[in-house]
């Protein structure tokens, strides 16, 4: 929590204006490529998407292209499909991030407090991180396949259990794949947060007779709040744009698993309806902004005095 402000104070500020100018010039030159790339490949396309979203523009009927104002938005926002997809997306997001938070915390605690075996645990948790999302999705899909997956051969699981046949089962597997793949990231962020909780506080509370559970909820959690919020923010945004695993596990968003990203893909790429699809793209963009603002506000109030600029 100390770095940004501290570094600034540590550095002797150059007094000479020429030097300062040179430094500033260098800084701009150094930042220019990165800034350009980031603006060029996000700012321009999003503006172009907005432009497209105001057109009737289907690549199959290029002659019918015309300006239609906001009617694509009206079409999307008044459709049942959009809202049920939003609901599915939010459901997956909330459930998977909650599970990840709890699991991640448990793994972080195991790693933090382990008497032994810390290395293997860290190594094991990093494996899902290193595995390509598409691969992980295939693995889970195959594992639950009723003809060849091992899951149906487990005790207590009916032989013809085919979770991908219905919505609850499909969502379960998508969430499972998501949770499995991203919990390590969560655990590592939380572990970093745990490291910031001073042991003395725990010892003091112990002396006062607080139980381990009490200490966890009264000391650890409040002190970790910024770390938790940052981790949850990033995972929430990630889960909200869920695409890869849903695409593999239920192609086309079948069985009520269509997330907003899958809908956008279907309209843009499969139906090649650039106008309508772009309206969906812009709406997803707005939704992401709303979520981010919500969290940043929460972060702001919980760490009013700290600068929340660091998560990566």
């Amino acid at each position, binding site marked *: 929590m100390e770095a940004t402000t501290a570094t600034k104070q540590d550095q002797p500020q150059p007094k000479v204006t020429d030097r300062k100018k040179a430094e500033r010039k260098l800084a701009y030159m150094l930042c220019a490529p990165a800034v350009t790339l980031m603006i060029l490949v996000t700012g321009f396309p999003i503006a172009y998407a907005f432009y497209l979203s105001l057109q009737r523009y289907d690549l199959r009927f290029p002659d019918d292209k015309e300006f239609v104002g906001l009617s694509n938005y009206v079409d999307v926002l008044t459709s049942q499909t959009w809202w049920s997809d939003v609901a599915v997306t939010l459901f997956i997001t909330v459930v998977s991030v909650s599970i990840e938070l709890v699991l991640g915390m448990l793994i972080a605690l195991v790693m933090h407090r382990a008497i032994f075996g810390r290395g293997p645990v860290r190594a094991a948790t990093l494996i899902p991180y290193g595995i390509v999302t598409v691969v992980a999705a295939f693995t889970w899909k195959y594992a639950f396949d009723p003809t060849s997956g091992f899951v149906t051969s487990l005790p207590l699981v009916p032989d013809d259990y085919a979770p991908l046949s*219905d919505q609850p089962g499909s969502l379960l597997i998508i969430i499972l794949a998501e949770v499995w793949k991203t919990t390590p990231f969560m655990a590592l962020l939380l572990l970093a947060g745990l490291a910031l909780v001073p042991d003395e506080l725990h010892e003091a509370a112990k002396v006062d007779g607080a139980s381990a559970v009490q200490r966890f909820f009264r000391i650890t959690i409040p002190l970790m709040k910024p770390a938790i919020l940052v981790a949850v923010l990033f995972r929430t945004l990630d889960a909200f744009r869920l695409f890869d695993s849903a695409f593999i596990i239920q192609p086309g968003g*079948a069985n009520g698993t269509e997330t907003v990203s899958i809908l956008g893909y279907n309209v843009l790429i499969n139906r090649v309806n650039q106008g309508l699809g772009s309206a*969906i793209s812009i709406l997803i963009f707005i939704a992401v902004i709303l979520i981010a603002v919500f969290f940043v506000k929460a972060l702001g109030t919980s760490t009013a005095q700290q600068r929340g600029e660091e998560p990566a």
Partner: protein
Amino acid sequence: MPARAFVGVVLSLIVAFTAGCGGGDEGGGSRTINWYVFSEPGGAYDAAVATCNKQAKGAYKIKYVRLPTDANQQRELLVRRLAAEDSSIDVIGMDVIWTAEFAQAKWIKPWTGANERAATEGKLKGPLRSVEYKDQIWAIPFTSNTQLLWYRKDKVKTPPKTWDQMIDQAVKLKTSIEVQGRQYEGLTVWVNSLIASAGGQIVDEDGNVKVDGTTKQAAEVIKRLADEAPPPGLTTNAEDEARLGFESGRSAFQINYPFIYPSAAEVKDPKDFQKKIGWARWPGVKEGTPSRPPLGGINLGVSAYSEKPDLAFRAARCLAQPKNQIVATEKGGLPPTTESLYDDKAIKKVYPFGDLIAESLEDAAPRPINPAYSDISLAIQKTFHPETDIDPDGIQSKLENRLDKAADGKIF
């Protein structure tokens, strides 16, 4: 801000990217004809390419560019390129359902004169219908495909003629019926043939929605199957899951393409599995009314953006010649589109059920011939999936509603 440096960096980056690694050109020599078609695993298309390149004697050289096997994925990839007016595509291996879309978008050239005659001569009716749109011919039929009813001769005495009979038998035998129930093109294939077999139509060529009471009849069949004789994973099974399910012995009936027959020879348990398999025409919906089996296959079209259309037409005609069709049957299990080939010895050897295939193709029901076909198909899939939740009473209006929205380019 040092503007010059900024602009300089941007420009050099762009130049570096586009020049350095932008080599997307695969046109090759001016005599290279790029043929985009799904990756045929049996080597039949490779053989066809080799044959034609030999016959061409240097006039052209066909390059086989492989697409995925899933029709939807093939289409996605092709549409992206065609919409980009990509001149690297010369000949397109088109699924039978794309004709109207590609023709309407002016992505393919019509076949006229001698080319038209070559494309239509001696072809079976079903495949022929799939290359017609707005009174013009848009491709040459190459390979075809249709589904049969496959059953276990050791369990089923007389093969059923209708879906209802089949479900009755399955219930009695405590077995299930393997179909394609996943939300994908295969479901549209099923629904379309059910509706056509009941005497209906979904959309006509002018895009008018023609949904009527036959939709409910189709829905009733599907729902009944889902309730009374569903295989595990009904709503996620595609062709291959159906094959595996049938081979595993869990089902005595299977609706599928002929590729399952050679595959059955590989089954080790039970012994002689292939000999236990019987075949019959795709079941009907109404007793006494012959069914309208599905129609699949690949037609060869010529891209409107090809820089050498004359060579492309020649190459397509060569690829689709009877000799190559026979190889496609032998190596890839793909039925010919030329009628006379069904009397050929080589075909009879691979296809003991060849006559049944020819008969099925003659009566096959094409899926809607419409430029917005992919939207229509998606609307059908969404309406009939999951099969377990189908409500036959409300399905007609649901389908109409979705089809209307699809036609208007709206979300559904």
